[in-house]
């Protein structure tokens, strides 16, 4: 009797363990497969050569628009007419948000709210609906918003394929729809706003790291999780760079964004290989944990990349690291509000709206460091001139 209870219990524990590592942003289709320790492995199924070439070209492009305000700038603009959406204000702007489930989205959303405030009476109401990282909730949210008299709809989709029909339904209502961050498989939105993208991110970091070692140098690649398009593109571009440089990728490990797991993995690799010549990361969230693993083991920290989170930037300066921080800037949350008002004003906007994607290097590190901001704040928020700074972001 007791045995059978135990067996049932175990089944449920197994199921529970599965739940615990579930990641709402994961896209079900396709995974990059490579065994740890076998170099860079096969190329990701998400890799598209043409997109890769385009993004790498954009890295060197000069943006148009106001200097010093990258959230208003455009790379290689392609203007579209919006006269048919022109309407007298003030406007009601609605926003269907994929989620607020990570610090990046938290910083971004606060930036967006502050941007709304700067427009004063032009916006009579700003409606925000949080989908909590669930596709089904976001589909229902968009559907609800259609009946609420919105003048423009901003969507940050949870996943690309699943949200496409909902976005198309919104377009069919004649509403100007603006999509940003993750995209949809449709040309119906007025514009799609995002920075250069994952290939650019992955390439910049991998290029920096591989240039700081001899061919055959040992690189450890740390990834958050497989199967998410923005992360897959980062890794696939890094793979191309590492293969080209002829470095030895000794491991490609998934950290689940868990600092404890990251630290253990790095610790194990340090013991296994003695020295590691570079660490590449597909996202900055656990960069500090990776650096700490070297520090706590009493080893020099090899060239490494992080992102623009302040905990990493601070450690970079304090420990005098050889580091680089490509970004996926949170200032992109300002742009949809600006775009929505331009569209409702009948002014042309660029579609797609490609934003510059700055990289933090040793030379400009000091500009981004701010000891008063919390450790999980993203430095490239473009928010220092917004109302409520810095208190709102603390």
């Amino acid at each position, binding site marked *: 009797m007791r045995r059978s209870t*135990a067996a049932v219990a175990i089944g449920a524990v197994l199921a529970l*363990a*599965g739940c615990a590592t579930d990641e709402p942003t994961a896209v079900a289709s396709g995974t990059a497969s490579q065994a740890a320790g076998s170099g860079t492995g096969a190329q990701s199924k998400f890799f598209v050569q043409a997109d890769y070439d385009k993004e790498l070209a954009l890295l060197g492009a000069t943006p148009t628009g106001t200097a010093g305000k990258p959230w208003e700038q455009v790379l290689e603009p392609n203007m579209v007419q919006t006269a048919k959406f022109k309407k007298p204000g003030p406007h009601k702007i609605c926003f269907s948000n994929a989620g607020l489930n990570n610090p990046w989205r938290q910083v971004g959303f606060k930036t967006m709210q502050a941007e709304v405030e700067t427009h004063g009476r032009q916006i009579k109401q700003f409606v925000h609906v949080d989908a909590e990282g669930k596709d089904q909730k976001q589909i229902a949210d968009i559907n609800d918003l259609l009946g609420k008299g919105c003048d423009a709809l901003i969507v940050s989709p949870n996943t690309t394929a699943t949200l496409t029909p909902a976005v198309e339904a919104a377009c069919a209502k004649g509403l100007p729809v603006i999509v940003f961050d993750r995209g949809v498989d449709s040309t119906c939105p007025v514009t799609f706003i995002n920075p250069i993208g994952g290939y650019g991110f992955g390439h910049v970091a991998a290029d920096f790291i591989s240039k700081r070692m001899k061919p055959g140098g040992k690189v450890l690649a740390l990834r958050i999780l497989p199967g998410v398009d923005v992360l897959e593109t980062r890794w696939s571009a890094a793979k191309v760079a590492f293969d080209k440089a002829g470095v030895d990728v000794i491991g490609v490990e998934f950290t689940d964004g868990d600092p404890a797991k990251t630290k*253990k993995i790095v610790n194990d690799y340090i013991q296994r290989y003695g020295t590691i010549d570079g660490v590449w990361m597909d996202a900055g969230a656990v960069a500090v944990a990776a650096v700490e693993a070297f520090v706590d083991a009493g080893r020099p920290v090899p060239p490494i990349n992080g992102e623009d989170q302040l905990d990493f930037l601070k450690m970079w300066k304090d420990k005098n690291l050889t580091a680089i921080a490509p970004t996926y800037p949170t200032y992109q949350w300002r742009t949809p509000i600006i775009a929505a008002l331009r569209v409702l004003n009948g002014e042309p906007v660029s579609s797609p709206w490609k934003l510059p994607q700055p990289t933090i290097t040793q030379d400009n590190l000091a500009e981004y460091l701010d000891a008063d901001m919390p450790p999980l704040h993203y430095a490239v928020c473009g928010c220092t001139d917004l109302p409520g700074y810095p208190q709102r972001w603390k």
Partner: protein
Amino acid sequence: MQLAERNRLRVRFRPGGLAPILVIFVVLLVLLGTRQPDFLSPPSLMSFLGRSAPLILLAAGQYFVIVAGEFDLSVGSLVTAQVVVAARLIDSDPSRTWPVILLLLAFGAAVGLVNGLITTRLRVSSFITTLGMYLILVGAVYLWSDGAPKGGLSEEFRRFGRRAFEDVFLVGRIPYALLILLAVAALAVLLTRSDFGRTLVAAGGNPRTAELSGVRVRHAKTLAFVLSGLAAAVAAILIGGYSGVSFQAGAGLEFGAITAVVLGGVALGGGRGSVVGAMLGALTLETLFTLMNFYGVSGALRSTVQGAIILLAVAVSAMRSVPAKGIQ
């Protein structure tokens, strides 16, 4: 007579005996030593023990619950909740370290008390109770933090899980976490040898007999949950210290702790096993994962291995319990 017979079985065959887990542990250590001789150097070994301390603590806590015939599935989310709460309350201010540590211990004990009372007073299966607690904590933390951790841990808080006494004679370094672990382990062993410990085993082995013989089963079981909650609090302090604040801090730990306890020869369903076995089980599990890494086995296989261990251990335990049932 009956008791003597059982005692004799206990030494040789009982799955709760220490011999099997010791053999597995030594075999894994030898394999590790051949593959990676550096691993067995004292400083590296000390660091390994330090970073394994949280799982060992959780296994000790889980032992008390499992040996009494119950489960505690809430420890993983409790650890996450504690780390997130600590970061927000300390907010990088060193002077708040100690008050927050006391608060965490109280919080852990309180969660354990609620688990225990619901299980024993309302007679809800502990599996459901602690699963409910797991979900409540996950949701509450999400709500309270708006879905992303805020604040930061002070260096004073982090040192327990991260720092060590350096330049120690012979061993090189002794992590604080290891000292905390040894202290807790000693307490746990003392507890199992007390009346309370024997009551728990009796309650797990045969709750009816235990109750009839005047043992306060419900008190003992409730206390077991409190101990598990306290162990989770200490583990959270060490994990937060080791790696900093994260929403992932406790993910999957309940599963790791249960695997460790089972691997250590403690019978699921209760009544048999030792706390030392449970802690050795946790150490063995960590050793196994390290070994897998050194052999280049993908980290993705870890949960598969854990699942296989649980199934195997239960199967072995079930086979062994057949003759035992005859005696009972």
